[in-house]
């Protein structure tokens, strides 16, 4: 499969948020404002590509080689958590401007199952290293796209006269469902 199809598939058809249900907590948490959604998207792209690469290496060259595949979960999460914390500290010190934009979103990524999920999916599907990188990037873009679109819709919903019991999270979830439905558009396109 070509990279183009891979990208389209990962962004739209198999959107990590709307088709695979990964990363929903930050999806609902950070989509109330457009700026937050943008920041979160950028941070996810950044971390997901890094994490995808590192976990792929760990998996292929250590876990598989020494028959430790069952330790995948713990290895991945420790790598991701350390990576996130490291990147956060690094950015804060070295590139404060970038940190101001992305840094505050980084901690949120440790428990973002989208990152962990993307890494797991990469090795499950036995992508090559480059494919894994591309797929990670595309998943992250898909995450960001969904988040930004959702934020756009949500800004309006927050102002609508939503009945009291449905306000906020409840209506957010229903809207997310409809967005997932709208993403059916891309079904079968790859």
């Amino acid at each position, binding site marked *: 499969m070509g990279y183009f199809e891979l990208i389209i598939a990962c962004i739209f058809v198999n959107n990590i948020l709307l088709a695979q249900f990964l990363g929903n907590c930050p999806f609902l948490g950070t989509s109330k404002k457009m700026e937050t959604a943008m920041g979160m998207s950028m941070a996810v792209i950044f971390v997901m590509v890094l994490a995808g690469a590192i976990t792929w290496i760990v998996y292929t060259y250590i876990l598989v080689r020494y028959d430790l595949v069952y330790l995948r979960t713990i290895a991945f999460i420790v790598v991701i958590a350390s990576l996130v914390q490291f990147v956060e500290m690094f950015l804060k010190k070295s590139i404060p401007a970038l940190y101001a934009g992305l840094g505050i979103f980084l901690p949120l990524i440790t428990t973002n199952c989208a990152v962990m999920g993307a890494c797991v999916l990469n090795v499950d599907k036995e992508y090559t290293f480059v494919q894994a990188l591309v797929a990670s990037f595309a998943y992250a873009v898909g995450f960001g796209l969904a988040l930004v679109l959702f934020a756009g819709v949500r800004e*309006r919903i*927050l*102002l*609508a*006269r939503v009945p009291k019991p449905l306000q906020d999270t409840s209506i957010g979830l229903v809207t997310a469902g409809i967005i997932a439905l709208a993403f059916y558009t891309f079904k079968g396109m790859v």
Partner: protein
Amino acid sequence: MIKKSFFGTLKPRLEYAIIDVSPPDPQEIPASTSVQLFAGVALEQEKRHLLKAGDPVKAGQKLTLFENKDDYVTAPVSGTIAEMAPFYGDFGSKMTSITIDISENHEIDAHFKKIAPSPTRENAKEYLCCLPGRFPVSLFSDSEQKITTLLIMGMDTDLLTLTQQFIVKTKTPAIKSGILALKETTGIEKFVIAVPETLSQDAVSTGAIVKPVGSIYPAASPHLILNDILGKEIPAGQSFEDMGVAVVSAEAVASIGTAYDSGQIPAKKILTVIDKSGQAKMVSAVIGTPLKDIFTALNMTANHEDRIIAGGPMKGASVYTEDHPVCENTDAVMVQDRSVIPLISDNACINCGECVRACPANVPVNMLIRFLEAGQFMEGADSYDLYSCIECGLCSYVCTAKMPILQYIRLAKYELARIQKAEAENV
């Protein structure tokens, strides 16, 4: 008269009323038994007032409520003060209403006469802030003012109203001498007078630069006129004064002229009275005359649940009692029958976009109104151009959902100003 055209895709065309070539004299409203004036300061319990009920006043006398305060009103008649009561105006303004019972013999306060031959900024500030047409006090009082241009509105900003046009048509010499006096007192060099095309000829003789204005509402909005004069837009949120421009009505300039020419402070206001059928009539009434006197004189009635509007249909202010007086800046009085009052609905914005297309200031009204309705005024101002609004009212006029859009906008501006003031005081 007010119906959407069949071709709904077109923008609404509301034409200004334009004055006849030879307007008849305004009908004189007979003097009432009492007049009511509004002083711009609130009554306060603790301080001593300089005035009290029973005090005699002379026509043209300055009535000051407190010591060391600049605000004053000028008595248009002579008589005795009958009552002083607090009055809540629009948008939280606290004022004091002063009722004067008119006495039989008309006495004139002599102070102004003495100084009239030598116009100065100080004496203008002292005596000429409550003229018919109301002149902005800041123009005289602010010693560091940077006003360089005076825009004289010889065109009524509201529909159906003819007052300023009438003044331009009939009181050109007064305007001319008013301009001269203002030149002397304020040092302003550039005078521009905005008039409808038909009055261009009359306006030339005032000595001001004539600026013809289109006939489709809201062309006569000072914001839009100033765009042309200055050649640039007034940044949203900034006032005319920030741009070195003051906007005054032609009547105010004419009144100044009359005051200095005659040595008497004029007390009569020209206004357009629009009855329920939309017929306009020019009348002349003493400032402070209760509206009901005008209605009586013109044989008009205002019934329960009708609407009385001081001003025109798009920019006026509705009042709640027939006892409301004619103020210095009441250019028109209008009565709307209850059957033609458009009801305001509680519908949410349906996003049809009529307002966006009607807006002369390109305000994204559809989004703005959502924020305002949710009470998020700050966001509305930051992201959706609240301060660009020139308050023409076309958005409310065309709103399919009949939302009180302009009401929300004005409330938001008022609230924000209030919050800013509170914050400024706290810091």
